[in-house]
């Protein structure tokens, strides 16, 4: 059987590789998207005090440590059954909103966006942040840097550090903010709203107004009809920090809504021996393999999923964009994976609006940001939405609050089965009769890149060249063809 190896995949946290096998007719028989890494967090946090989980699990991911920090902090609150004072919750969510704005910005402009803004037919040398700058204007580079600076400034003000925040403890925070800091945060938030609106307008002008791009978005190659998951507040609106987990079916109807502590009744993780990562699926639907449909337990968790799983956005400008999104794409739910990029920008706007809402909340500068826990610690679950998907932290402790067991289901992990399926479908659509063309190189990348796999840097970079080499072996293992771009 012929084999095509794409190795390594870049801009995935850690490393990944894809193996594609062709049958006798030269069509794709199967693909394997392998994750070659395991560090062992669920084991080595055992023996550590529960309050350190918010610090240690930061180091699961240095791009979204804020997500792990919050999930772990909420789990620790649950372990102690302690209620965080309103100011504490609001400060955490304010930090989180600013982080979201930064993270989504990085992905759209430097990473996923160029695929879209420049289009798949654009020369590879232009499909990167520089190409984006030339297309939408030189100031944009400065604005992106500014947005990242502002976001990390807020994270540092509330979280103590730019990377790996340290201020969330069981029951609240170690510090609050002054009125001076609050003013600065509010000002940056207003700027962020403008920046988000600018980004959506740019997306509209460049992508949505272009029929070729629109066709690409709504086309079948990147479409999968699966379940969708996201956190929602009491009104079923998208919330990144708190709420219940809601799952809707491929038909858009609510399938289940559960409290964080009940996750294990709904989610299971399937194992394959050819990879270090597991495949979460909906337990009550069952694992049917890497297939679409309402009878398959595969679900997606991404900005698109969150929009699909909700009844709307909790802030007015974002809600307008949400309505426009579904009107343009023909109603809920939207199944086209490339639409994730658009959904991501709507979330960027919501994050900025929420940022200002919280920064102008009368309680935000109150000195009452921590409740001392008094109950005996036992067990707790904390769930937040990481930018890449629903993030679940579950800890058991002894009576001293030392961790005895841990279970973590991390953002991108939710999407491992969908990524595997998207890659297979892209490969199947493009490789027929043994003929591999250059389009494969780009379109396979676009398939997994839309998910923003764990690390923000899902795409091209400074030199703008995407060196990629695909080697085709015949059944005897001899090289029959090598397709290269930008590889000497």
């Amino acid at each position, binding site marked *: *059987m012929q*084999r095509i190896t794409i190795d*390594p995949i*870049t*801009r995935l946290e*850690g*490393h990944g590789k894809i193996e594609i*096998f062709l049958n006798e007719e030269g069509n794709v028989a199967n693909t*394997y998207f392998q994750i*070659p*890494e*395991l*560090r*062992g967090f*669920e*084991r*080595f946090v055992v*023996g550590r*005090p529960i*309050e*350190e989980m918010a610090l*240690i699990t*930061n*180091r*699961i*991911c*240095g*791009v979204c*440590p804020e997500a792990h920090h919050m999930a772990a902090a909420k789990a620790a609150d649950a372990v*102690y059954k302690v209620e965080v004072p309103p100011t504490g919750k609001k400060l955490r969510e304010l930090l989180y909103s600013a982080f979201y704005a930064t993270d989504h910005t990085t992905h759209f402009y430097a990473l996923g966006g160029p695929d879209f803004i420049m289009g798949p037919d654009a020369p590879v040398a232009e499909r990167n942040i520089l190409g984006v700058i030339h297309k939408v204007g030189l100031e944009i580079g400065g604005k992106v*840097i500014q947005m*990242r600076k502002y976001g*990390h400034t807020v994270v540092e003000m509330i979280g*103590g*550090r*730019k*990377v*790996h925040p340290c*201020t969330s403890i069981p029951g609240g925070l*170690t510090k609050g903010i002054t009125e001076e800091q609050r003013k600065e945060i509010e000002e940056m938030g207003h700027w962020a709203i403008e920046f988000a609106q600018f980004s959506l307008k740019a997306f509209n002008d460049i992508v949505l107004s272009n029929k070729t791009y629109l066709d690409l978005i709504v086309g079948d190659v990147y479409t999968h009809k699966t379940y969708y998951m996201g956190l929602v507040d009491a009104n079923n609106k998208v919330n990144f920090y708190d709420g219940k987990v809601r799952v809707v079916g491929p038909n858009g109807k609510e399938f289940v809504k559960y409290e964080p502590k009940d*996750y294990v009744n709904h989610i*299971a*993780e399937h*194992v394959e*021996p*050819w990879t*270090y990562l*597991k495949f979460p699926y909906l337990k009550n639907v069952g*694992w049917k393999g890497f297939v679409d449909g309402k009878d398959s337990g595969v679900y997606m968790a991404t900005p698109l999923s969150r929009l699909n799983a909700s009844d709307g956005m909790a802030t007015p400008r974002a809600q307008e964009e949400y309505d426009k999104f579904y009107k343009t794409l023909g109603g809920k739910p939207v199944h086209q994976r490339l639409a994730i990029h658009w959904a991501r920008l709507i979330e960027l706007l919501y994050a900025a609006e929420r940022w200002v809402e919280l920064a102008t909340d009368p309680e935000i500068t109150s000195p009452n940001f921590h409740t001392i826990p008094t109950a005996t610690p036992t067990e707790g679950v904390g769930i937040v939405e990481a930018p890449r998907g629903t993030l679940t932290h*579950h800890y058991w402790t002894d009576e001293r*609050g030392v961790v005895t067991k841990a*279970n973590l*289901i991390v953002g991108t992990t939710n999407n491992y089965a969908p990524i595997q399926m998207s890659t297979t479908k892209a490969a199947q659509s493009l490789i027929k009769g043994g003929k591999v063309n250059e389009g494969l190189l780009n379109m396979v990348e676009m398939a997994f890149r839309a998910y923003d796999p764990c690390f923000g*840097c899902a795409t*091209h*970079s400074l*030199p703008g060249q995407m*060196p990629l080499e695909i080697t085709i072996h015949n059944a005897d293992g001899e090289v029959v063809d090598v397709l290269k771009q*930008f*590889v000497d």
Partner: protein
Amino acid sequence: MSKPKFAMYWAASCGGCEISVLNIHEKILDVDANFEVVFWPVAMDAKYKDVEAMEDGSITLCLFNGGMRNDENEHIAKLLRRKSKIMVAFGSCACEGCIPGLGNFSTVDQLIDTAFTTLSTDNPKNLRPQTSYDAPEGALHIPTMNPMLKTLDQVVDVDYYMPGCPPESHQITAVVELVIAALQGSAQLPPKGATIGAGNSTVCDECTRKRNEKLIKAFGRIQFTHTDPELCLLEQGIPCNGLATRSGCNARCPSAGAQCIGCYGPAEGVVDYGARLISAFASVIDSEKPEEIDQILDGLVDPAGQFYRFNLAGSLLRGSKSAHHQSNGS
């Protein structure tokens, strides 16, 4: 004249070092202006084959972050060492193992077993990942995990160490400026083996909290008290590692009300970080009676984790007995 070549690579790490580099904001353009970025998997798509094709020593500066968790990490470390003039162990993972080094308290089998038997894992055949697996269509491979996670200098020769989890952006900026100046001949790089991008003292030196003589009658935990923001945390019984941790971070965490957890690694002159902390903590316990000492120490619920949180893989003991025994086959 072609620009000197720059590479940055992540082994078993989290990406925080990359983000910290991006957080030098406009300064990244100085990097772009002064270097040709030839390999940086997070940001651009050069492959391993491209690195293999480069001449030995042709990469002027390589910032290598991440620990050696598996054979692929080691392979790339050795490859980049051959191809690079200056190899910097960038960040806590490369310098001392960092958080993933906590895996060395266990055996690799235990790390894998735990992940594949969690509460939500559906694994009726009790499968484990196989480094070589015969799929129906062909053989599939994934890297083999090392019995113990290693630091970069336990695998290759390292020129400079840049500590921190992650190194602070202002420190990265300072180092970038120094290297550019050195390349232009207007500054000299420190002697090989030096620690760069950090101070020579301890975090206590940079911390603005008031310090008196410490007499600890009890160790507390950060959540059980509303600490005095002006007073030394250790004095208030909160276990703070600032005493043995290298300066350079501006005592960020104590400024924010949280104890120093030691992410900047050992201070200058410290042979074993945990040993230094044991000495320091023991010295300030206010008791001379064995039973009382034990009772005070009961307040430290995880001393090995407290003292080796970031440093286990780079310490004298490197890991637990079981990890060593799995490693040496006894």
